[in-house]
């Protein structure tokens, strides 16, 4: 074998062991993480969100191709999966997927392909900004798909990317009316959608009000109060004042939750809000996001990418060829990004909260520093403030000792070190 062939063998062997062999097993026999494949369909979007990487860098992340190519490549992936006996949950990603004809065709095709298959994906996940609700044609097509997917036992699950009534200025140009919001929450109840608003530096001062609005809607529509996944946007633009506002928001939702549950710590660890819990729990990967557990395929050209936010030419890991043979040409980056642990990143390796920190987004780090692994200092400030706030607040409401008891030793040491300096 020559150099390129050995590189390809190295990368393919890794992909086979890490993912493809797992996809051949029943779900309950797999390594916990190996369940998903992300299909990057198209980055076009009808919104212009202030914090979005697609708005800022989308033209460099996704090649310009026609819809037919995207569809054909999606079909080739499905055929390849089925022929090889692989089953995984699919995620259709980026831009707004449910306003594009090609994505409806892809979803229909996936359901068709698996209609008579014995082994089916558990679900298909799609993050969506829900703006299609304003268009009767799209709305009907979405509802048809949702219903059909449930009949086929491959439910399409939507993750609702809605920032809430009081943060809509971050997501121009489309806003929802109260009636439309009502309709959204009704659908969320019917089809069990979750919400994943982005907590961004701009409008952070509105988040307490926004939180109350979300909870009011949950109550009104009989949705659980934890039907919301909160994620702070880890871009560089947080000012000191905004970071302080973010801390106030954290304190607010801790108090809010504490007033409503019998045992705060039990609730936090079992059902509660990820933002309040994740620093004190461990996960099986080196980083919190799905970059280390989900192969991501760019349907425009069947390129294997690290993730939707890092699919720049310089980081393309490999490609499927005409015969659907996967050729890996950056095995170092493929293996490196999959196994690294954020605690041991540059800077982080000596940070006193490296076991508590949420970590940073590789794409955001690259966009700002030019290096996939160099933390953005401003985001470090944000994360430090977050940890400090959580520890102080948990101490104040008398639950910190209980949290320490549930933490592993290394995490406990860092909590105690933080207590000493706060």
């Amino acid at each position, binding site marked *: 074998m020559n150099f390129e062939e050995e590189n390809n063998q190295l990368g393919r*062997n890794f992909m086979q062991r890490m993912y493809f062999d797992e996809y051949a097993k029943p779900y309950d026999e797999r390594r916990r993480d190996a369940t998903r494949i992300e299909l990057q369909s198209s980055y076009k979007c009808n919104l212009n969100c202030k914090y979005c990487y697609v708005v800022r860098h989308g033209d460099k992340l996704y090649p310009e191709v026609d819809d037919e190519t995207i569809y054909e490549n999606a079909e080739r992936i499905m055929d390849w999966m089925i022929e090889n006996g692989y089953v995984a949950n699919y995620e259709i990603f980026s831009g707004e997927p449910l306003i594009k004809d090609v994505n409806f065709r892809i979803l229909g095709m996936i359901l068709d392909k698996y209609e008579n298959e014995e082994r089916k994906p558990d679900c298909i996940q799609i993050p969506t900004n829900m703006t299609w609700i304003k268009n009767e044609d799209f709305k009907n097509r979405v509802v048809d798909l949702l219903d059909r997917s449930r009949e086929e036992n491959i439910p399409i699950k939507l993750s609702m990317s809605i920032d809430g009534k009081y943060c809509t200025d971050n997501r121009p140009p489309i806003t929802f009316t109260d009636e439309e919001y009502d309709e959204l929450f009704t659908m969320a109840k019917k089809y069990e959608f979750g919400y994943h608003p982005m907590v961004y530096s701009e409008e952070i001062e509105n988040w307490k009000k926004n939180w109350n609005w979300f909870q009011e809607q949950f109550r009104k529509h009989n949705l659980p109060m934890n039907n919301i996944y909160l994620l702070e946007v880890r871009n560089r633009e947080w000012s000191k004042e905004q970071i302080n506002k973010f801390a106030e928001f954290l304190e607010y939702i801790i108090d809010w939750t504490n007033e409503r549950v019998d045992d705060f710590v039990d609730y936090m660890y079992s059902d509660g809000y990820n933002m309040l819990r994740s620093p004190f729990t461990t996960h099986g990967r080196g980083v919190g996001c799905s970059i280390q557990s989900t192969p991501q395929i760019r349907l425009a050209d069947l390129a294997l990418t690290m993730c939707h936010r890092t699919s720049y030419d310089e980081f393309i890991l490999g490609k499927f060829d005409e015969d659907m043979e996967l050729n890996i040409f950056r095995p170092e980056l493929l293996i490196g990004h999959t196994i690294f642990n954020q605690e*041991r990143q540059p*800077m982080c*390796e000596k940070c006193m909260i490296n076991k508590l920190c949420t970590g940073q987004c590789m794409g955001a780090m690259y966009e700002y520093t030019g290096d996939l692994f160099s933390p953005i200092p401003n985001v470090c400030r944000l994360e430090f403030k977050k940890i400090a706030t959580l520890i102080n607040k948990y101490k104040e409401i008398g639950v910190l000792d209980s949290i320490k008891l549930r933490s592993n030793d290394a995490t406990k040491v860092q909590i105690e070190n933080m207590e000493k300096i706060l």
Partner: protein
Amino acid sequence: MLNKRFKSSEITSTGSCPLDCNYCYIPKTEMMESMHDEIVEYVRSGDWVDVIDENFQNLTAFSLWGTEPLLTLEDVEPHIRELKDRFPELELVQFSSSFCVDPTPIKSFKETLDELDIDLGVQVSADGQYTEVNRMEGATKLIKQNLHKLAEVLDTDLKLRWKSTIGTDNIKDMVENPEEIDKFFEYFEDIEKELEDTHLNFVGGSPNPTLVVPGKYTSENGKTFAKYLKLLREKGYKSTYTSRLQRCQKLAHKIDRKPFIFTCAGGDSNLGIDMDNIHLCHRTYYFDREEYRESLRQTDDYDNWDVSLLEEGILDMMNKWYIPSGDTTRFEYVLRNYHDYFKMKLDITKALLREFAECGQAEEIYKDDETLRETLALFLHTSMSCPVENLLNTGTMHIHPVSMIRLWCNGAFQELLRTIK
């Protein structure tokens, strides 16, 4: 202004070379001749002195890079005095040459440096009997002639150091014909003997050849390399890698506190200058010129170069992020993240070693021997650190190219360990 830890600078002083070495890291394109004219103008203008002055707080060492520095040595010389005026602590000027062009400008250059109390360090690039095949037909003879020519004109002592590079074909030849190993070292000893009564003083002993890096090494290349190191050991020759491993062994306890003592000086204490731009080192010269990048994109013959992922945006990334013009804060921050931390680098190399073993591209022992994986990873990151090659090959400074790892994990590293036991 750069951080004061940067005390060494290099400039690109040429864009032309009479050779086209088969392992050179600078791909030669037709664009280079016109670039050379532009570079010569720049060197003659002395504007680079101002650029260094504007960026460096202090300077103790200065070197000339590019293709063949001897071609423009006379153009650099008039500005050295001004450089010394601005940086009184300047004590060393260095360059490497193939010695395939007229070396006599060194005489005047050295006299100027002597007057200014600055040392001159010159490296002579030659690959023993392989110089003919690696560099240029007739180069072996030409180097000897030019060294004699220089010896004849010099009035004062000049320190020279050999620098040799060998590739896979050379290694294979030495493994198949072990007498070639002796011939390799004899080549240099003979020249030194011929010149022993002149002002040319060879320092640093016989050349211990370094490898073409990062190369495109296969596991078979790795096995051959292991045999080569074994032959070297049996014949009593020391490889340059033995010294590097010994240094690593001696200083390993410092890696947690001072990882930067193990990394390349590029981007740590040394930076390059080309026109108004700052370079991590000479390795990125020319990449900031769009016409050169374009000429590279249109070249489909990369036989003389070991990086063939240019079309994938790597060069554009280098130009955008790693060749700054103006504010260097972000650039310096990222460089410190390379030089001051090491844990993730080791983790990834260890994982790669494990994966190599899983697919039969490394010795079986790397599957289970955590200590060996850790030791080799430490050796690679402390002894063969090159942030630019990492960037060019993997897209990030923190990950070592597979080529070098593969070369060492097929018996060569265990062989190296035997040399220090």
